[in-house]
């Protein structure tokens, strides 16, 4: 990113199964708390697998009434969580929506307004599509996520919603960073959101990807992922804008990279992921040896963990793999929010000098290599300068963001 403006993170918000806010997210990560369990937010009691992650305290009506300058607008659950996370992040940054004339919102999602789509389908099943309400119809488009954030915060700039599945937040973070680095914007509100949904739970079950009780990435006895929900938001700001106002800086976004497998709709490809890692590190102008921690995509399925570790070994060559962990072990797979929450975890890791753990890990899978350090059970103090945040997705959509300690 030579000759480009520096981009820093000055505010963060997290809406997760840990709770609402950065404090609960930080405390959960440090303690290695597992907060997945039987899901009630959507009825999945009739499935062979019933565990997952869910966020309590999502208030759709309250936030819908408050958005769009007071005008009534019904929002889907993912958009509400995005708005909640964005409000938290904005408050954390000390900015407000009128901070600059170019501030915009870029968010990612996997399933968009899944609850609105399920309501549409329920209307179809029970009384016919002609009974669909206008409020539900208006809340179906996935673009509502970023536009709801922009409306709620009064942002006048660019609004984009990416739907690159489970790497979508990293696309949003990277693109928002590019807009600041190139001088198009001084502040961007970026992140991702997804709501728990029944059809996704069914699909992942059918693929054989769901764990029976807990998600245990890198464990020899891991048996899959847990579907979950949540939202992440980061306030990206140009370094000069942040320092001019004396803002607290969590970390610097020093680069990102993407690749597409172009091979299979659901199965990941190690060589393509390795190329994504190499591209991201090159974009950030750092070497593999500089990386102190990897926040893994770490779904906990037997295949994905093996592929991810193999890809890292390909990209890192003779360099040792740094400590690596999966926050999905604690909160489940939050889909489009996953790499956004990974980004929040990375920035906390740098700002507070600790390594988030892989909870519930008992025996590291020997097939992953004797040298793998998945930070079992609890967080660990460490010197953290540069971190790599992995995000991979259906369709072979890989995106990786790189964060670093912010030098003066």
């Amino acid at each position: 990113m030579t000759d480009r403006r520096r981009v820093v993170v000055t505010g963060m918000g997290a809406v997760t199964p840990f709770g609402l806010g950065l404090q609960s997210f930080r405390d959960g990560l440090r303690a290695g708390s597992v907060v997945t369990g039987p899901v009630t937010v959507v009825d999945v009691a009739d499935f062979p697998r019933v565990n997952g992650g869910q966020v309590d305290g999502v208030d759709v009506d309250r936030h819908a009434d408050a958005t769009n300058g007071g005008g009534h607008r019904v929002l889907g659950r993912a958009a509400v969580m995005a708005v909640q996370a964005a409000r938290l992040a904005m408050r954390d940054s000390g900015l407000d929506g009128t901070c600059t004339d170019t501030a915009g919102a870029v968010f990612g999602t996997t399933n968009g307004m899944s609850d609105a789509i399920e309501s549409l389908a329920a209307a179809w099943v029970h009384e016919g599509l002609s009974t669909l309400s206008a409020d539900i119809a208006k809340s179906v488009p996935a673009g509502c996520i970023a536009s709801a954030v922009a409306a709620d915060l009064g942002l006048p700039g660019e609004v984009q919603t990416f739907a690159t599945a489970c790497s979508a937040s990293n696309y949003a973070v990277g693109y928002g960073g590019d807009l600041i680095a190139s001088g198009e914007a001084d502040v961007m509100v970026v992140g991702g959101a997804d709501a728990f949904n029944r059809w996704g739970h069914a699909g992942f079950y059918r693929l054989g990807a769901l764990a029976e009780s807990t998600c245990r990435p890198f464990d020899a006895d891991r048996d899959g992922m847990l579907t979950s929900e949540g939202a992440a938001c980061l306030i990206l700001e140009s370094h000069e804008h942040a320092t001019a106002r004396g803002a607290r800086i969590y970390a610097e976004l020093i680069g990102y990279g993407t690749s597409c497998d172009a091979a299979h709709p659901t199965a990941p490809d190690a060589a393509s992921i390795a190329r994504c890692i190499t591209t991201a590190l090159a974009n950030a102008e750092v070497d593999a040896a500089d990386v102190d921690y990897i926040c893994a995509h770490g779904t906990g399925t037997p295949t994905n963990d093996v592929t991810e570790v193999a890809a890292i070994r390909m990209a890192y060559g003779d360099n040792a793999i740094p400590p690596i962990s999966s926050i999905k072990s604690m909160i489940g797979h939050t889909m489009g929010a996953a790499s956004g929450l990974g980004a929040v975890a990375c920035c906390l890791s740098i700002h507070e000098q600790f390594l988030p753990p892989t909870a519930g890990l008992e025996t590291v899978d020997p097939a992953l290599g004797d040298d793998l350090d998945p930070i079992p059970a609890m967080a660990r103090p460490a010197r953290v300068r540069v971190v790599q945040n992995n995000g991979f997705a259906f369709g072979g959509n890989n995106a990786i963001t790189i964060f670093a300690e912010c030098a003066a």
Partner: protein
Amino acid sequence: MTVPITISAAAAVTGAARQPSDPAQITGLGDDVDLPPIPVHCIASDHPDMLRPPKGTRYLDKTSKLALAVARKLTDGRDDLGDPTRTGVVVATSGSLRSSAEFYRETVVHDEPHLVSAKQFPTTVLNCAASQVAIHRGFTGTNATIMGENNASTAALRFALTAIASGHIDRAVVIGVDEMSAQRAWMRYRAGCYGTRAGLGEGAAAVLVERGNETVHDATPVLASIMRTHHTADGTVDHASLRDAVSRAIKRAGIDSDRISHLFTTCSLRDDLAEIELAALDGLFNLDRVRVCRLSPESGDIASANGLLQLAAAHAVRDLEYGVITSLESDGTAAAAVIGGAR
């Protein structure tokens, strides 16, 4: 934009030449599903561009099939696309509402809700079309899917321009695509997002966006692209964001607004946005002097493809000095792109 970027090719798959379309060909219809009382258009299965699809794609949703068709039309026979890792795919779409709704339906109408089709599951994920284009055309660079209805095309163009200017890729296949299904027709109808006369349609448009190359003939330079948002107290949309976007884009392009010869609008097929779009432009241009190019109503409103249909049309205009492509959505977001005449 400091990096010169051009449109070097364009293609479209629409049903305009095959009117009227047969409603029975619309996906998602069944004994328990009818259509709303507005015109609805579709691309028939025997449409020339839809024949001979790639092997193994019969199970795909219509959105993905249309995206594959327009990508093939755009890139077949091109042996000058260079390193596939430096070629991205950017798809603007609403996704397949039918796929998601049907998949959910399968979980509630059967006694064993988990016995859904594993093969169909990826079609419920919004990036299915973009990944299928990558798989079948072999492009392994950045692969993005952009949501946004009428703004999606111009937003996707913005993303592609930024990805190229930032050095992530050298070129991008940018596609705008939407399918028409009974589910989507009812959603748009109930939301009030339609035009009484043109109704709703399906189709796809695509352009090849590249880092500027002086050796490419008939390339259309993209000079600037801006997205803006304006929020009103009562949540209604007005013309402020579009007027702002157009003004800033022209300023960014570094040209005098008097040199704009063509305006390519995208809202003319929607009752709720057409007048607002024109009002925004009326305050900036002498509409008696500038040629205003509207979308053809024959294919219906293909929301996510509208901006790229217009960009493809602009690429073919021979007497264009400078043109502006505009878009606006009912959430108050707007976009404008300034292009030059083809060299």
